């Protein structure tokens, strides 16, 4: 059975009250959603809280999900709403918990052709992007979502989603010139 077939079955079962089926959906999407929400919040505690809140809301609102439509985009949309609500409610100048201070985020370069410094440089540049651009960019590039679904998640038009990704890439190209971006571990390109 193909992946989308499995997922459709899990959703049907979850909507009928099968919590174990919902657990399979959590297993499938938790890590990916956490990664994206981390890019938005830059705070692993906040990202984890938001991820949990998203799945709990999804569980409560399962009845409103239309079978056959894009479940991933639906969950991510809930996640983005939670993020926006949290941003509205909380002060941005709040000091993060001590183990989230800069330098202690545990960025590792294992398995990557890139050096730790290059990864950190790009990570910092992404963090500097306006939140709307960052959200769209990471949905497209890191999560592999088509522009149509990026638009759904961010509650905008496909044209605006494309534009945000374009502007984000343009900004990164300006900031991460070859002189600024440290060379990779290997010389192959």
């Amino acid at each position: 059975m193909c992946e989308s077939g499995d997922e459709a079955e899990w959703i049907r079962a979850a909507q009928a009250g099968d919590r174990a089926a919902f657990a399979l959906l959590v297993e499938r999407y938790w890590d990916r959603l956490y990664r994206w929400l981390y890019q938005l919040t830059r705070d692993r505690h906040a990202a984890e809280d938001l991820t949990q809140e998203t799945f709990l809301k999804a569980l409560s609102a399962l009845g409103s999900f239309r079978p056959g439509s894009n479940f991933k985009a639906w969950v991510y949309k809930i996640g983005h709403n939670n993020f926006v609500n949290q941003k509205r409610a909380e002060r941005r100048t709040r000091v993060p918990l001590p183990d989230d201070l800069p330098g202690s985020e545990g960025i590792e370069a294992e398995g990557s052709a890139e050096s730790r410094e290059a990864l950190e440089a790009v990570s910092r540049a992404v963090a500097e992007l306006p939140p709307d651009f960052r959200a769209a960019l990471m949905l497209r590039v890191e999560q592999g979502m088509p522009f149509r679904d990026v638009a759904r998640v961010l509650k905008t038009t496909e044209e605006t989603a494309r534009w945000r990704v374009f502007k984000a890439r343009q900004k990164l190209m300006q900031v991460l010139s070859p002189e600024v971006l440290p060379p990779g571990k290997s010389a192959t390109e």
Partner: protein
Amino acid sequence: MNCQTIQNRVLALPDPRLLPDPLREHVNACPGCLAWWKQAARIERILAELPVPPAPADKKTALLQELSGPVIHTVPAIERRSFATRFWSVPAVRTMAGLAAAVLFAVGGWLMIRPGPGSPNIQAKPSSDPFLERIVQRDLALAQARTADQRLDVLGSLAGDLSTEAQSLSKIANPEELRDLSGMFQKVVNDGIVEQARKLPEHSLTQTQKKELLNRLSQKLLDAGRQADEAARESPPHAQPALKTISETARDGQTKLKAILGA
């Protein structure tokens, strides 16, 4: 097509690493664009593999366990209304609840009339902040309030606390600090008081009770606005904007509450 146009088209692709033929032809023929494209492709690749720190508290496992494990609650699924009714119908429970209420009143009364800070029994710790304590108490009162109207009353008091603190600090705090306080006051009035007054459930209060509540809140805002105006007259210029914000927010809040009452 010039190079800038080509580069913009590359950035607009779903994946800049995968060039359609027309763009690829130009990039291969143009050294500047080729170097530029290699950088764009490299950034795209790095973006796709940016590491993130692990989640701190393993809430995923906790949620999965909760979803997959057996339901462990031992209380039988009794329909809650009948349980509450049965609980309160027991005479001993009603007696104890009455006694508890009496104790609460006594405690509340004592707290109201207890000696002030001049008394030798009360010793303020050097670093404890009375205003912080007050705000924590307000949050606690909001947590304990069972109904929307009770919460509104506490929000009204919270707004008053913030206005008083701003006035108190108006001669000594810097403009940014005062702006923060006026910003908090605005949030409490607009997002707290006015918004919750709009959302008061229809059946929760009689028209008279609603009128009394909104008039009470209006009065609190009126007092806060007047005090801010008075403080502004005696405060240095840098404090004026924040106090003016408080005063205007209070007046605006009153207007909105009147409109809600009239609706």
